[in-house]
């Protein structure tokens, strides 16, 4: 539990920010959860601000839910894991949905980006935000009967931080933040993270917002399918690659509902693996399955119209990064003017309508957007403006027009996005040549030559898809800093770097807001990447399915899910 002194001081600071009008109540609750405030403590803060206590973990389907019903097998449908679902290296929807049924995280994200404790009961930083201490939940056992202790957390972190481990999540979220040997078991129920630098958003990186950080037993040897030991609500029963996985309820699961009833309600789960989205949709419509954890908007309109289904929409933070490689022409010599010229050609609402049926949040080329990350300041909007685009082109020395090449993988809706960019750039005199390649070609190359040959990093202009990230700083650290692991833009702005370090190392919310505004301005001014939208997530399910939790839809937490007979 956070120390009383710390909680009092930081709580007072948050209340002051709200009362001064520098922070909304929603923002205050999110930040309080990041700093380990319990629901009760957060409720007290709201009361101090003159507001009501609210449950920030409620999902879109929470309102008007019937009483839970015990029993039943919930059938899920989605793609097969791309590789063996090793929690250390998974990165795809199939793998994440599978492991999140029998593994758990220290913390879970709510749909509004606030945090709720799971295997950690509370957490608190030191004054300089470079040491975070987590108190673990007691009485939790793995499904093989061994108790869950601090050593399991240490072993999990060390495994993830092993340079040979191949964990993308660890690399992108802990690079320069947490090093091997930085995690220490103080006692059986206390873990201390000593960071390489102060990091105010650290709790996000040990939540399920970092999908690789699922807590594994210290005895885990990389054989997850043979030895699926976890603390989750379900136990992996059978796994047939590319076909089906079945789960049975974990009788020793620690979770209980608000009424004290043992979770999970369901007897088990089935995860049917079908690659094709249309085939998934048809199976759901036919009643053969109960839920599609991640519904792709394109082609899902029929699901929205189906009277037997309910499609929940969650505010998502996934993006399609449109990167201008600053080390390649024309961006190298054209500079910010050229990047902005392209940015002002985009008709963002039209793109949102075409690709996401108007259901995603518009993006304005910065991560710090209140509409997406509640604790961020509002971002200045960017509307299509061809006059401005032409002027910027002329200023960059391309008054006669410009020809650029956009490299894109034939994956998801990326080709359609490329076509829209191509069309929308034409009136400004920008000719976009689309270089399409297969997913494999686009991401070809191992970690060793990320900066050598792989198109998504070295091509002059690319579209790269990113799954959800829980905080703007996590995106920025992974792609916008000069030493970022996955920088397609190769942007190197020293002012941004120093401001970012300052931003992540302070818990002063007023200062953070100021610094966030500056970071946002720097990002918009240089426009090393375009972010036309933040993708909302959808989950389609039968109307009798309730209480599957996110965040977003990819994680699909079924620990408290149930089905009524209707």
């Amino acid at each position: 539990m956070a120390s009383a002194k710390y909680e009092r001081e930081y709580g007072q600071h948050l209340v002051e920010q709200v009362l001064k009008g520098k922070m909304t109540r929603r923002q205050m609750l999110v930040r309080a959860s990041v700093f380990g405030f319990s629901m009760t403590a957060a409720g007290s803060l709201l009361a101090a601000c003159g507001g009501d206590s609210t449950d920030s973990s409620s999902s879109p389907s929470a309102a008007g839910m019937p009483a839970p019903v015990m029993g039943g097998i919930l059938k899920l449908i989605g793609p097969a894991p791309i590789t063996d679902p090793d929690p250390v290296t998974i990165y795809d929807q199939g793998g994440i949905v599978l492991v999140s049924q029998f593994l758990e995280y220290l913390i879970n994200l709510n749909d509004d980006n606030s945090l709720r404790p799971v295997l950690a009961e509370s957490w608190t930083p030191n004054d300089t935000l470079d040491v975070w201490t987590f108190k673990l939940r007691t009485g939790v056992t793995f499904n093989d009967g061994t108790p869950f202790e601090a050593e399991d957390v240490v072993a999990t972190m060390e495994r993830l931080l092993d340079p040979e481990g191949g964990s993308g999540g660890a690399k992108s979220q802990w690079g320069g933040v947490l090093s091997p040997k930085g995690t220490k078991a103080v006692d059986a129920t206390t873990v201390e993270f000593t960071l390489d630098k102060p990091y105010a958003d650290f709790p996000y990186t040990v939540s399920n917002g970092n999908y690789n950080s699922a807590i594994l037993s210290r005895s885990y040897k990389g054989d997850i399918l043979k030895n699926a030991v976890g603390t989750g609500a379900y136990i992996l029963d059978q796994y047939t690659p590319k076909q089906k996985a079945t789960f049975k309820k974990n009788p020793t699961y620690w979770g209980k509902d608000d009424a004290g009833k043992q979770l999970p309600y369901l007897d088990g789960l089935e995860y049917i693996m079908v690659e094709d989205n249309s085939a998934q949709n048809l199976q759901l419509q036919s009643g053969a399955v109960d839920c599609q954890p991640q519904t792709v908007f394109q082609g899902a309109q029929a699901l929205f119209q189906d009277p037997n289904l309910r499609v929940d929409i969650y505010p998502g933070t996934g993006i399609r990064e449109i990167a201008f490689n600053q080390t390649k022409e024309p961006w190298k010599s054209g500079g910010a003017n050229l990047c902005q010229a392209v940015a002002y050609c985009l008709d963002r609402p039209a793109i949102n309508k075409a690709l996401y049926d108007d259901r995603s949040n518009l993006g304005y080329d910065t991560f710090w957007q209140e509409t997406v990350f509640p604790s961020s300041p509002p971002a200045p909007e960017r509307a299509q403006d061809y006059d401005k685009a032409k002027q910027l082109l002329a200023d960059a020395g391309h008054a006669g027009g410009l020809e650029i090449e956009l490299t894109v993988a034939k994956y998801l809706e990326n080709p359609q996005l490329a076509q829209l960019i191509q069309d929308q750039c034409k009136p400004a005199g920008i000719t976009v040549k689309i270089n399409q390649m297969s997913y494999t070609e686009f991401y070809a190359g191992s970690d060793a030559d990320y900066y050598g040959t792989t198109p998504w990093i070295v091509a002059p202009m690319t579209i790269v898809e990113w799954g959800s990230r829980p905080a703007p700083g996590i995106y920025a650290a992974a792609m916008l800093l000069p030493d970022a692991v996955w920088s397609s833009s190769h942007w190197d702005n020293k002012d941004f770097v120093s401001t970012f370090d300052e931003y992540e190392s302070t818990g002063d919310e007023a200062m953070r807001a100021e610094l966030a505004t500056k970071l946002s301005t720097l990002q918009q001014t240089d426009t090393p990447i375009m972010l036309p939208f933040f993708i909302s997530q959808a989950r389609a399910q039968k109307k009798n399915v309730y209480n599957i939790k996110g965040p977003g839809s990819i994680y699909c937490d079924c620990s408290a899910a149930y089905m009524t007979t209707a």
Partner: protein
Amino acid sequence: MPDDRPTPFGPDPDLREESMQLGADPEMIELRADAASEGRDLELPGGDHKSKALEADAAATAEQKRQRRYLVKALLRSPTFMVGLIIVLFWVFMALFSAFITQSPTLTDPNISLAAPSASHWFGTDDLGRDVFARTMAGARTVLIIAPLATLLALLWGGIIGLIAGFWRGITDEIIMRLIDVLLALPIIITSILILSLLGKGTAIIIVAIGALFTPVVSRTVRAAVIGEREREYVMAARLRGERSAFVMVREILPNITQPIIVEGTIRLGYAVFTAATLSFLGFGLAPPSPDWGLTISVERVFLQIAPWTVLFPAAALASLVVAVNLITDGLGRTFSK
């Protein structure tokens, strides 16, 4: 004493020997040899043979022309052929000139995405607000480049192999046909995918892949036709004249097996249209935003339930072209068999 008189084939007694072995009339051989040695044309016994031969040639030519006219008239009277021809010509016209008739097939307008067919968009719009009519018309272009060229390639390669196997027979035929049997056992689509995966993508590679895969079946048809012709008198006569094998195959036999080759060609054309569209559907053809029919069906099929026009019109266009080619095949087959 060796007989060293020159022969019509040159001063080679072996060829004379060979001609005799082939069953030629010995008297005729002697007459040809004499004529050759004196540097004059052969005068066949029985009067003005040269003029008679010319008359016979003229008669044959006239007969051929008459037959050709008859065939053309018969085809023009064939409803199946004519319907097929009109549809194919329509798509050829659209492939060539749709750019001048319709709006741009790649022009997007997300504000009218998935709009139903209307007066302004006859076939509706797709997910990016592109005009489905424009895309359907322009989609004919790629398939009408790939399919005919692939078919011609298959006819060329299959024709050469079939002529060689059928004309020479023997061990050459055995080896070629066993290889053909192996190739015919390979499923077309799977083998095309393997070829494209190995060699990469691109229109030229698709043409070569489809052409190569249709070569075995064409070569079988050609071989069968050649076997039927190789024992005919005109072939024998050409050989007796000492014509080279290539000459006999190309100038004598080939013109006489054009009908089965044409029918085979149209059958393959239909299959080529279908195969090219299938490869595009599977992602081995052109890349978006090409309005290629197979690709469009693949990309837009997710909207089938809510915007069926995005898929049905290109699918109907593809079906119409395949059916039209098959109608032409049917018309040709019926007419030739009369």
